[in-house]
């Protein structure tokens, strides 16, 4: 991808091509981030779409102040998730097969789907901050520095949350296995 800062500046001037590049770069990652946060892949669709529409509406207000664009974008996604939980409390829907990548092997896809459902279910037992770190690190694949930027925390604090989050996730996964 072209230098992100110049892309963002062009997008702020309503350059459609620049905005389209940013959209393609972040769409899947934001979708996965939201899915893990809310535990519902279908509901995550509407929220993901809304994140990008909100971004479009407010990108002119984004200012470069040492924080990357991704931090701002994930913050919008975070707020969208918070708003979602505030407005609705719903039971998560089971994952559909075509939501999971895994080649053409149906058995492999099904197994992966079950693994992901277990992770999504277990993630609900984490604290908000732990889930945020796990989601940003392992599904959005951000570095510790980037996660720290998104969450407004120090890298040390993020590493500690990463540790406690993995421990809590392991505990929740083992409970799920024993059920």
């Amino acid at each position, binding site marked *: 991808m072209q230098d992100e800062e110049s892309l963002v500046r062009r997008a702020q001037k*309503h350059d*459609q091509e620049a905005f*389209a590049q940013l*959209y393609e770069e972040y*769409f*899947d990652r934001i*979708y*996965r981030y939201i*899915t*893990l946060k809310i535990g519902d892949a279908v509901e995550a*669709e*509407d929220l*993901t*779409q*809304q994140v*990008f*529409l*909100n*971004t*479009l*509406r*407010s990108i002119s207000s*984004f*200012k470069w*102040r040492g924080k990357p664009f991704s931090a*701002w974008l994930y*913050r*919008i996604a*975070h*707020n*969208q998730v918070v708003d979602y939980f505030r407005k609705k409390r719903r039971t998560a829907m089971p*994952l*559909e097969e*075509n*939501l*999971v*990548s*895994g080649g053409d092997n149906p058995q492999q896809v099904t197994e*992966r789907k079950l*693994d*992901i459902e*277990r*992770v*999504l279910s277990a993630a609900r037992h984490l604290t908000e901050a732990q889930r945020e770190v796990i989601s940003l*690190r*392992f*599904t959005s*694949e951000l570095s*510790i520095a980037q996660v720290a930027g998104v969450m*407004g925390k120090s890298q*040390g604090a993020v*590493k*500690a949350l*990463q*540790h406690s989050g*993995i*421990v809590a*996730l*392991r505990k929740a*996964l083992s409970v799920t296995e024993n059920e």
Partner: protein
Amino acid sequence: MNNKEFDNILNECLERLLVKGESLEQCLERYPQQAAELKPLLETALAAKEASAIQPRPDFRARARYQFQSALQETASRKSRLSWGWFPRWATVVAIVLVLVLAGGGTVFAAESSMPDSPLYSVKLATEQVRLTLTPSQMGKARLCAELADRRVTEIAYMAGKGDAGQVELITRRLDEKLELLVVLIEGRGGLSLPGMLMAPPPDTGEAEAPPVPPPAEDTAPPPEASPPAVITEPGKGWGGKDADDLDGNRVRLRNTLVSDAAHNRVVLRAALDEMPESVKPALRRAIVVSEDGYEEVLEALEALE
């Protein structure tokens, strides 16, 4: 070893495992003393990484991309859409004549109550623009804008009932535009190139140009992120009230209207959703999101003034 040191080792292993592609065994060999503690954590991290196999459904991806591109084009052409050129010239001329000469007459009433499938609808939109332009105060414009947003919701429900998804989407964009304009008016960002403001007498700010919008806080998402502090520091300037009491009273009345409209429109649109054919539901869902989020933004902007 303290927790901080272990957190660093864990993170180092995660980087090697998840980013650099090392195997679990290779990672553990680097830290034999911590291997027993690291192993279950790294296995869990690998399981969590599985969640990155989630991908958007192809049909959702295509739909989302299409809607985003539509919104992008809409935004790019917003200034021109908001200009008089958006309306047919005949409709603008008719609207100006109707408002200035025949205001209150039957023709105005007929156009005002027309729906998007009526030939008079263009006159209705142009008439609204004329009224918006001729309304002198920011508060008056804001009240009118609230009324127009409410009309758009009625039209959305009406066109959804006709099964016309295209019109529902079009009117939803107009609703979004009106709610955005409301936020702009409430926040006092009168320097924007909105037609009603350009043609109305400029607010007496005592400055050559409108004050710049203060930079947003970066830890909040829009709308709070994009919401600057109110510019209403001097009652009677901008919002048109004579004194602070008038200003507060106007704000309260506007707020009450908007709270009532938001609740009513939520019920209207959600009730409509249950009755509509599947072909209209996606457009109607989008309208619901735009309406609910839009009213919320407007009310937040009003609250920020208090």
